[in-house]
């Protein structure tokens, strides 16, 4: 169980995340949405201890994330940021094997190799596993990084804009995989999304941020309606229901 309690983060004098409290529902997909600069990524970074909060605390199983031992923590929560620049050349298989580092510290045993194989299989990367990352397309690279996180085998998977720079086909592919992770493997997924329709169609729970504060949070159907969206985005957004998906038609509003 992850509980975020009244956390605040300043960049300079400006609060980027301002007194935010959220509980992450286990076994669900939770989306963080909101305009640019709302503090979504910063919030996610603090939950995953990539950033320290200035005040407030994030609790995993009732104890502060800063008090967890780093290798124990990394068996519980994994995080994938949007930019993953590296100056080493790795193959997909080598990258995914790094996902087992919290367990094996670099010496893979049979169990680790099995998990790596499964993760590669899960992301349909078997044919490409010996290709180098810099030879891949954006979608394949993103899948490789998600495979690493799957191999890490954590209860909580945090993703910062995983659909960035992906086309429709790959975006849908990745969202479907995340859905599968929740339903088949019982993971909890927390994801920062820009496209509100992906949030609407795939998430169970939505947290909407604006200017560093939570303006709305609740089950998806409570957030995806014109009134709530008006409050979040300052736009009049009509909603259309199609095949039991609620689609926000914001393009000409």
């Amino acid at each position, binding site marked *: 169980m992850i509980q975020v309690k009244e956390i605040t983060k300043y960049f300079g004098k400006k609060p980027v995340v301002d007194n935010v409290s959220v509980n992450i529902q286990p076994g669900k997909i939770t989306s963080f949405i909101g305009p640019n600069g709302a503090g979504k990524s910063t919030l996610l970074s603090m939950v995953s201890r990539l950033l320290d909060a200035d005040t407030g605390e994030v609790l995993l199983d009732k104890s502060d994330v800063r008090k967890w031992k780093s290798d124990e*923590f990394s068996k519980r929560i994994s995080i994938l*940021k949007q930019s993953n620049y590296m100056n080493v050349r790795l193959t997909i298989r080598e990258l995914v094997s790094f996902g087992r*580092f919290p367990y094996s510290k670099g010496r893979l045993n049979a169990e680790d190799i099995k998990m790596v194989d499964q993760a590669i299989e899960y992301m349909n990367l078997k044919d490409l596993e010996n290709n180098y990352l810099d030879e891949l397309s954006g979608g394949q690279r993103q899948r490789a990084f998600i495979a690493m996180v799957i191999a890490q085998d954590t209860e909580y998977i945090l993703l910062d804009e995983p659909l960035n720079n992906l086309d429709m086909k790959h975006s849908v592919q990745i969202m479907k995989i995340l859905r599968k992770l929740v339903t088949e493997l019982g993971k909890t997924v927390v994801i920062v999304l820009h496209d509100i329709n992906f949030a609407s169609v795939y998430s169970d729970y939505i947290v909407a941020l604006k200017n560093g504060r939570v303006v709305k949070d609740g089950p998806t159907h409570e957030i995806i309606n014109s009134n709530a969206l008006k409050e979040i985005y300052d736009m009049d957004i009509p909603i259309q229901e199609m095949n039991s998906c609620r689609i926000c038609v914001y393009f000409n509003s």
Partner: protein
Amino acid sequence: MRNRTKMLILLVIAIIFTALYLFQGLNGSYDYALPRRAIKVLAMALTGVAIAYSTVIFQTITHNRILTPSVMGLDSLYMLVQTVIYYFFGSMSILVINKNYNFFISVIAMIVFALLLYRFLFNAGKRPIYFLLLVGIIIGTFLGSITTFMQVLIDPNEFTSLQNKMFASFNNVNGDLVWLAMVIIVLTIIYGWRVIRELDVLSLGRDNAINLGVNYDKIVKSMLVLSAILIATSTALVGPITFFGLIVANLSYQYFNTYKHSVLIVGASLMSLVALIGGQWIVERIFTFDTTLSVIINFIGGIYFIYLLLKESRASV
């Protein structure tokens, strides 16, 4: 070619050069020449390994392949310490003549400097590592300028003597100091070797390293201190070889094409041995001491540095 084979080839070349250097033209002088040559070989091996190791870990924690620990102001500080000694005490002072004093003063000055720098920077809040690099470069330039200023003021004869300190030389290393430096370097490397696999993870970047359970801040700090100790020791032993670490580290990345630091570091160390011992052999027996090894290394290294800059700038466009 497998990495194991490549490693063996390097090892064989290193052994051949070492044997040539030790035994060629010995003329049966086992009591006199051999121990002296052996001390030089040991000094070169220590320097080479210390520089290779510290450069590779430094470049991994700073996520760059161009800057080396010398850039953090360590080489400049060494020159400043030497210049200050000449400026205030002259070339006949005990601090110059007694190599032990000189060694200790240089090592301690460089390590204290590095620790203060890191301490100040890390306590001033969480700053990106680039900030540290930038401050290091600026301080290096600043120290360099003070050094030049003092060198302009001292007696020309003193300056000629000081000039010997400006370039690394293996020709007059002190036997006792080599053993001391060996203890420091070997202990430091054994200590650092425990986190060799964490370094592999660090090359995925800060965020991924933390995600995978690496205690990032702690490792970065301890590795910075470690590389400072190694560079300080090797510089105080033989003098500054600014571009050397850059060459061997980058050649090792290119040649071995792996992320594994155990391979990269051992590879870079072997290359160091080949370059230093082989180079010294060529300088002594072929150029018959017409030039010094460090001049050649800095000449080749400087060209390689420019090549790397051009390559990186093309890659980032």
